[in-house]
């Protein structure tokens, strides 16, 4: 019998293999920290963030495997990360850049393409809040709606204040365009990402004239109709903007429009909000 050939009934390591076996242990390696953190990010248990240039300046976008989780302005990347962890409670690391898929989707969305799907991570928020934000997503670029419109559209016409609160808590401003929701009395309303001035800036960047909007509403011109079609719209509805000056009429309320024989536009679905 040749002693150098291991037999099947021997233990599965023989002496000559022992050196190789020991050396194999030496081939264990330490994974770069991005492996573990990356897995947590993909699982939605941690996030990465990167800067994004917007009309409001440098904005930071946080994301994980479930979608965009947080958007905000900050004086520094570190300040953004700190605020994120304080609010969301998950660890966050600076990423190299937005994943191409998300960056493309966000740019398209900011450019007005509403069909473009952006995955959002809205865990931890109430169904009411999510409903409000999803409705805000439907407001087209270059248009605004009053808080009461969202309340009516989601079937909670009396929850106007709650709608305002939910919009103030929007974790993904710009992506969910809460800046396109204004007060029905014409004031531009609050904005979570930099206050009313920032809100005017972003609306102007989207092609609106915020000063005129406010002036019109203050003067009681809250709905716009066409005396040829007898249809009444929110003033920024794309249909209202097509009405020529000669045929444009203004109403302080939907009731006034109805009395004059106007029916509500099927695109912007105007609602009257109790003053």
């Amino acid at each position, binding site marked *: 019998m040749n002693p150098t050939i*291991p037999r*099947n009934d021997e233990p*599965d*390591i023989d002496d*000559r*293999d022992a050196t*190789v*076996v020991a*050396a*194999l*242990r*030496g*081939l*264990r*390696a*330490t*994974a*770069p920290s*991005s*492996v*573990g953190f*990356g*897995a*947590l990010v*993909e*699982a939605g*248990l941690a996030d990465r963030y990167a800067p994004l240039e917007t009309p409001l300046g440098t904005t930071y976008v946080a994301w994980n*495997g479930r979608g965009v989780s947080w958007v905000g302005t900050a004086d520094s990347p570190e300040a953004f990360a700190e605020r994120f962890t304080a609010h969301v409670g998950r660890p966050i690391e600076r990423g190299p850049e937005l994943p191409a898929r998300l960056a493309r989707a966000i740019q398209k969305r900011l450019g007005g393409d509403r069909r473009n799907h952006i995955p959002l991570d809205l865990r931890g928020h109430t169904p009411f809040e999510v409903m409000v934000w999803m409705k805000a997503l439907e407001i087209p670029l270059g248009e605004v709606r009053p808080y009461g419109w969202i309340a009516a559209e989601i079937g909670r016409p009396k929850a106007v204040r709650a709608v305002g609160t939910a919009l103030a808590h929007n974790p993904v401003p710009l992506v969910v365009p809460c800046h396109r929701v204004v007060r029905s009395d014409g004031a531009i309303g609050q904005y979570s990402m930099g206050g009313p001035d920032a809100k005017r800036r972003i609306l102007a960047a989207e092609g609106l004239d915020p000063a005129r909007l406010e002036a019109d509403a203050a003067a009681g011109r809250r709905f716009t109709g066409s005396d040829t079609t007898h249809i009444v719209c929110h003033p920024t509805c794309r249909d209202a903007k097509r009405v020529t000056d000669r045929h444009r009429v203004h109403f302080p309320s939907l009731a006034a429009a109805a009395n004059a024989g106007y029916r509500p536009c099927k695109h912007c679905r105007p609602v009257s909000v109790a003053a």
Partner: protein
Amino acid sequence: MDTDAALATRLSRDLDGAFPALVAAHADRLYSIVLRLLGDRRDAEEVAQDALVRAYRAMAGYPGERVASLKLRPWLASIAVNLARNRRRRLDDRNPPNQLEPMLDGGFDLPTDAAAWGAPGSTADRHETQRELAAALLRLNVTVRAAVILRHLDGLSLAETAAALGRPEGTIKAQVHRGLRELRAILEDAAERGGGTDSPSATTTVSMRAAPYPAALEAAR
């Protein structure tokens, strides 16, 4: 073993809360397994991360009892090995098999200074041996390679290796034997060839040694 069982129990009760502990405990070993299977650091990073994510998603879909009864070490290893196999197939489609780049990416740099190659000195020697062993592993048949890596690099038991690879224990035992024998032969052969560092063919020898597909390289010469 015990800590793995305890971890599985925690995962079954609070997946999100316990998953970071799984990552901390298993990221290095999964990365090591995949690195030595594929020989490429970037691929290993991606596959190891993907294995952890797949594990998370699988557990999210399992009933609690199933998560609690998971044998985490072999289970995670089997996910990593399967993903590495898929990755290798794609690599083979992309790269002609006689390219050395994946190996060089893997840290098996060819020595620039031929004298350093055979220089005595314990640390350099050990690193050299490890580099040679890592390269030798990549020359094993991939089935045999996986068995050797799980059994002796990762340190799974024979039964766990068999479970992870879905093959009978007897088969694994034979494959591990064969793998170790071949590794020894490759290393002994390399030692013989590498003896004369003044040989003008030193670089060629090194290339041969590092080639994952020696036959293909032979043909290409």
